[in-house]
């Protein structure tokens, strides 16, 4: 009977692993599978192993021997196709595995769909990583294999070209024969051409999300396999040759769109793969390689650059233009993985460009424009500027190190206060570190640093358990920490093999020196090693013991135990249990207030103004503020605790008052003696709590969670009857509703005249935003837009193109852009003349005070700003008002509604003329939603709950729980 599937297993000098591969084919859940082993004239007994397998499984395994070695995968696979008989053909390499159900899944799909090719997911397994490590299993282009799919032709999904593996697929034999499809035999990367031809010829291609193939990857072994030998130039030349042949193929078929799709794939995948391996190679090699690449890149359709990923396109484009440094830096810059910025950037005509030179031609300007990546406005520490070591040497028992840190776009001004610390960290436990001071000097587009120290006294490794030490340079720029990773680069001396003598805590028998080396990502690190014969001997003994089965098991167990203990001790769950069982039994500290605003993100909003009122009126309270990541900007007279730390939980447990505007951690049981004043962060237009569809349809547990959080409230501030009907109902608030208005709005009602502190704050803000040229400030503060998956869209674009704004309104207005605190603004540097990013301002009240008008959408900021009785424009492009809210916005709007950029420009231009038209409605709006905002909110809260400013404190029934 004819087999349904033939699995062609190719092997060369792999007697050890061949039986395992063959077993994965023999163990298929589909019964009708034949296995054909093709031995490429091996010299190590692979042929015999194949024959043994054939003898053991007659009728199911066949062994074929090539007379002479072919040097590649092409000929063995072709031979296997000829020698097999199954209706479908699959390929398996002797060092990989088939999933047990691969043939059944592929055959079932092939028969159901009639496809010529059926392809399943391939998982790469990095064998060098520990068994349960994250990232050990990496699916190959998983986005193609999200769900089952059937494509009539390649043009229905050109992205298939990314999966160029020939092994994770089953091919209909009739299809291979009709199309005469075979592998090329004289070049490497035969897969690429074969799969491209096959995809192009197939009348129907089916994909399944099931794993069918496991590609076992061992990082550089003694005899690297073909795909690991990328480093060789000839190899790359082969790849280019294959690509040229694929291009020819597409050209013959007139498939120009597909060819471009393939070009894009070459830029995004092939080229990048090689370029990322160039770091650490010598300059000549890099140049030779990039010249080779440039030759092919020049043949590409220029439109391919624009369709490729921006940084891949930059890498390819700069390789073509001969800017090798810029090209390599772009290839290594992977957004989203905390990449290091190693390239120079230039600012021209209000845009930011990658690379040192001036971008030429329109294509260059379009491709090299990286304004959108926000290098000019993101916090310095997020940029990870590149750090090149220019000196590393041992002299007279002291190390001398020096280097340069890039100063991208001169973000660090020459008069900045600079200091630096060189840190050596144990890679396994980065909290163990040795620190050395480094001198830092500003040199224009770079910062030069140097350090000199005695390694033996400054760095004290333990020995054995800390074999690798990483180096970091922590810069402090005007109080902001920027961590950089020193590494190799242009101008570096050879950084490998410098020896620093050290004295480990386990004596010099454990090790006696650190040897420098450059990691694959080009960063400097040190390896602890033994130099003296005695140390070498103990090292060998310890290593031997450690790798023995017993030693390994013991290490594994100890590691697990340590991890588990550490996890348990530091986990939030533990803290919450301890909070509920232990901490909340400690006595309450009278007058202790824990403030929190937006889960600790800022010092702002109602809690801030309640705190100020308590301070102003001299009440006997001890204030604690919680911060989420950085204590910067929080008040100096309060104790600061990091949200989630033990100190935070302790403070919450012993507090007499909790004051926040969003929510303290779930599952914390508030004790009866604590009064929780929930000030909330705004009146609602958008549906809240269980009125939101998301929560309405959620499992009961999520509602229970909301109920748990809300039931802790003892007091809920409301501004109007609207709040009572919407917010309180949606959230299910059952506590006392305090009709006091919002403390943050007191200054909006009262003005800043009686409050010099706030007046100074507003003046400082006006200064720092540069608003003293007589133009009027318009605040643009929309709420966040939800993208796919219901998550906030992270970037806020200006509502009007900066050039248009400058032309039409630039003489009269400055636009302050205030993104939601979950987003950041995207402003090109050229917009600076007419627009300012106010995202870093933590408290919005001073911003409201200095703004002369507001543009918003359905953000709750309109309810606050209306109190100032200044113009409001609601900008609702593309039907944003279709979002369901608590009331119909159009008839009640506090100002004009605009839908397009032009309308908004016109509304701003005619702001004063339209004022009489809208003022009345706006006042009605303010009166309706700010019913209780009379400028006394903070005082009302303080009087209601806090002890009066007298030496004797009364502890009457104010702590009693209010129903």
């Amino acid at each position, binding site marked *: 009977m004819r087999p349904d599937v033939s699995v062609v297993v190719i092997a060369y000098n792999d007697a050890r692993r061949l039986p395992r591969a063959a077993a994965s084919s023999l163990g298929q*859940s589909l019964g009708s599978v034949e296995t054909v082993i093709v031995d490429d004239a091996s010299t190590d007994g692979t042929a015999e192993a194949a024959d043994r397998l054939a003898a053991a499984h007659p009728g199911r395994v066949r062994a074929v021997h090539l007379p002479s070695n072919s040097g590649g995968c092409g000929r063995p696979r072709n031979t296997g196709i000829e020698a097999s008989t199954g209706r479908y053909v699959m390929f398996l390499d002797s060092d990989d595995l088939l999933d047990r159900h691969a043939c059944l899944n592929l055959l*079932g799909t092939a028969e159901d769909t009639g496809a010529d090719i059926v392809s399943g997911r391939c998982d790469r397994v990095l064998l060098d990583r520990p068994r349960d490590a994250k990232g050990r299993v990496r699916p190959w282009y998983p986005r193609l294999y999200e769900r089952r799919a059937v494509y009539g032709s390649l043009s229905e999904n050109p992205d298939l070209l990314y999966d160029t593996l020939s092994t994770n697929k089953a091919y209909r034999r009739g299809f291979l024969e009709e199309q005469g499809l075979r592998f090329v035999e004289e070049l490497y990367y035969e897969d690429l051409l074969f799969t491209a031809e096959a995809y192009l010829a197939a009348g129907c291609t089916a994909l399944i999300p099931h794993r*069918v193939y496991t590609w076992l990857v061992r990082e550089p072994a003694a005899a690297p396999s073909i795909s690991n030998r990328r480093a060789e130039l000839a190899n790359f030349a082969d790849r280019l040759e294959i690509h040229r042949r694929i291009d020819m193929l597409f050209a013959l078929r007139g498939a120009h769109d597909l060819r471009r799709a393939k070009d894009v794939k070459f830029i995004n995948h092939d080229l990048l793969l090689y370029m990322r391996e160039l770091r650490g190679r010598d300059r000549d090699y890099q140049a030779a390689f990039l010249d080779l690449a440039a030759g092919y890149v020049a043949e590409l359709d220029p439109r391919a650059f624009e369709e490729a990923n921006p940084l891949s396109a930059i890498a390819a484009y700069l390789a073509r233009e001969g800017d090798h440094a810029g090209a390599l830096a772009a290839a290594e810059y992977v957004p989203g993985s905390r990449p290091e910025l190693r390239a120079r950037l230039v600012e021209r005509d209000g845009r930011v460009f990658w690379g040192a030179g001036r971008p030429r031609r329109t294509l260059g300007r379009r491709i090299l424009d990286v304004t959108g990546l926000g290098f000019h406005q993101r916090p310095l520490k997020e940029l990870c500027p590149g750090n090149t070591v220019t000196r590393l040497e041992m002299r007279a028992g002291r190390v001398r190190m020096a280097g340069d840190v890039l100063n991208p776009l001169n973000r660090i001004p020459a008069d900045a206060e600079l200091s630096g610390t060189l840190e050596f960290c144990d890679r396994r436990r980065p909290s163990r570190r040795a620190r050395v001071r480094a001198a830092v000097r500003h040199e224009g587009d770079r910062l030069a640093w140097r350090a000199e120290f005695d390694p033996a006294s400054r760095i004290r490794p333990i020995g054995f358990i800390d074999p690798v030490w990483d180096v970091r340079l922590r810069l402090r720029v005007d109080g902001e920490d920027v961590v950089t990773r020193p590494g190799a680069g242009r101008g570096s001396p050879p950084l490998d093999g410098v020896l620093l003598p050290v004295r480990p805590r386990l004596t010099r028998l454990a090790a006696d020196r650190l040897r420098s080396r450059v990691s694959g990502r080009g960063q400097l690190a040190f390896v602890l090693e033994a130099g003296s014969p005695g140390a070498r001997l103990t090292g060998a003994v310890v290593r031997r013991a450690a790798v023995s089965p017993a030693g390994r098991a013991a290490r594994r167990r100890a590691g697990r135990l340590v991890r588990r203990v550490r996890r348990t001790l530091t986990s939030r769950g533990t803290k919450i249990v301890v909070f509920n069982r232990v901490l909340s039994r400690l006595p309450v500290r009278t007058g202790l207030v824990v403030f929190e605003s937006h889960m600790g993100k800022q010092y702002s909003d109602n809690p801030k103004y309640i705190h100020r009122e308590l301070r102003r009126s001299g009440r006997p309270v001890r204030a604690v503020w919680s911060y989420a990541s950085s204590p910067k900007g929080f008040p100096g007279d309060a104790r600061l605790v990091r949200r989630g730390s033990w100190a935070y939980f302790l403070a919450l447990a012993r507090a007499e008052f909790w004051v926040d505007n969003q929510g303290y951690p779930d599952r914390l049981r508030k004790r009866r003696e604590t009064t929780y004043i929930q000030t909330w962060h705004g009146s609602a237009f958008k549906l809240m709590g269980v009125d939101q*569809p998301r929560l309405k349809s959620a499992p009961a547990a999520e509602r229970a969670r909301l109920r748990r959080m809300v039931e802790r409230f003892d007091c809920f501030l409301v501004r109007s009857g609207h709040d009572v009907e919407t917010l309180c109902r949606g959230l299910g608030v059952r506590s006392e509703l305090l009709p006091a208005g919002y403390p943050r709005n007191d200054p909006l009602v009262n003005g800043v005249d009686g409050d010099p502190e706030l007046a100074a704050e507003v003046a400082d803000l006006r200064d720092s935003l540069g608003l003293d040229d007589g133009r009027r400030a318009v605040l643009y503060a929309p709420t966040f837009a939800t993208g796919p998956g219901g998550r906030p869209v992270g970037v806020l674009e200006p509502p009007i193109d900066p050039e248009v704004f400058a032309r039409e309104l630039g003489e009269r207005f400055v636009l302050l852009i205030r993104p939601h605190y979950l987003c950041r603004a995207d402003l090109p540097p050229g917009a600076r003349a007419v627009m300012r990013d106010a995202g870093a301002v933590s408290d919005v009240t001073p911003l409201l005070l200095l703004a002369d008008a507001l543009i918003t959408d359905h953000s709750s900021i309109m309810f606050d700003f209306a109190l100032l009785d200044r113009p409001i424009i609601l900008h609702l492009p593309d039907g944003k008002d279709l979002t369901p809210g608590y009331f119909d916005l159009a008839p009640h709007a506090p100002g004009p509604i605009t839908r397009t950029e032009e309308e908004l420009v016109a509304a701003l231009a005619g702001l004063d003329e339209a004022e009489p038209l809208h003022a009345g409605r706006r006042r009605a709006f303010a009166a309706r939603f700010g019913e209780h905002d009379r400028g006394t909110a903070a005082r009302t809260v303080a009087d209601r709950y806090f002890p009066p400013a007298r030496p004797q404190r009364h502890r009457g029934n104010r702590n009693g729980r209010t129903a």
Partner: protein
Amino acid sequence: MAAPRDVFIVCNNTDGMGGLQRWAHHMARLMAGRGDRVTLVGITRGPESYHHGRDGSYAVEVLHEEWRPPAMAWRPKRLRQRIDVRARGRDLWRAMAQRRGAARLSELFAAAGPGSVVIVGQVWAMEWVRLADTSGLRVVGMSHESFAATRASSRYRRVKEHYADVDRMLVLTAEDADAWARDGMTNVDYIPNALHVTPSVHPTLDLPVVACVGRLSYEKGVDMMLEAWERVAARRPGWRLHVYGGGPDENQLREWVDAAGLSGSVEFRGVVADVEEALVEASVFALPSRAEGFPMSVLEAMAYGLPTVAFDCAPGVRTLIEDGRGGVLVEPGDVAAFAAELDRLMGDPELRRAVGAEARASVLRFHPDAVLARWDRLFDLLHRTLRPAGEPVRDMPKRPVPATAACTTDGTAEGAMEGAADGAAEGEAGRTAARVPGPADGPAAERAAEPAPGG
């Protein structure tokens, strides 16, 4: 049938009232009806002994007349749990009882001829099948709920463990199968449930009635139905909402209806004995569920030609109302949109007729013949072999099944609609068996670890 097979269908119990049991008996009847030797095996007796229209064409076996050991295997996590002697003792008792049941199962399996198949309907029952001797048979494990529902429950870990080695794991929709495949279950495939009603009459779609059928519990979302009804009722006087089914939330929902002043237009009709009666007098069918597997009530409504309005809450719902044919899908929880769609259908009889006709045409995808053909195709794939020449080859031809023989449903036996086809059938069975001697073990104890809210 050229070569009748032995088919074993193994469930937690065979006589409960749940949708799973109804499915099992329906499958058994269908397969027996065309010549297979079918044995329906229940691990235990159910809480009620419902006969599910069994007609003697297939055998029914029960492994344990009474299951008293703990429902779940003991999985100690902490040291203190590990040295709990009583729990260990109970687990030994459980293992011994389980082995006895598995031995009985092995006996049944041993009598099977070549080409036989074991279909395990629920993961709890799989524990017994794994212990039994299944050599020569192919084992198919099924999950009758959506991936998301399994993922959120303790069944996820058990499915990953017990179904890892079965020859095929089956779920009900392609989307769920893909989710399991992404999650690493490479043996997964899907076969939808077969339509199990043959309408004798069809609704005229003229009566001003919206029908809603399901347990009155949180996940069935009847509260959202009522909220939507509140928005519609005022605009459509004369229309009535019939809510069928009973459940824990009944009193609460009735109170809500009274408080909202809707008692004039909303009727709670209790558990329905005959689905036909309920559907024939309606013109629109509503499925307000928060979570679903493969809602058989929608399948029935479509077979009766009713247009459906449903929340897009699960792959099963999307599969039934594919591309909006035969009904309308609304974003989960968007009560306003749900009400608007109801209103649109209520106000337009022609639209109801058009969508209803689509539904009747679309539901043929789940006709028993079509579904059985998929099962046959699966059995064929599972039993394909490479035989050395000379040995007789027994191929299984795909023979079309005569349509008349396929559906021997007797209408009256369809039974109560309560809990129709819900994925919770699994949970019910678990509860049945959960006569746990001590309070401190089993998954109930795991779940109870959360501290109670208070302060």
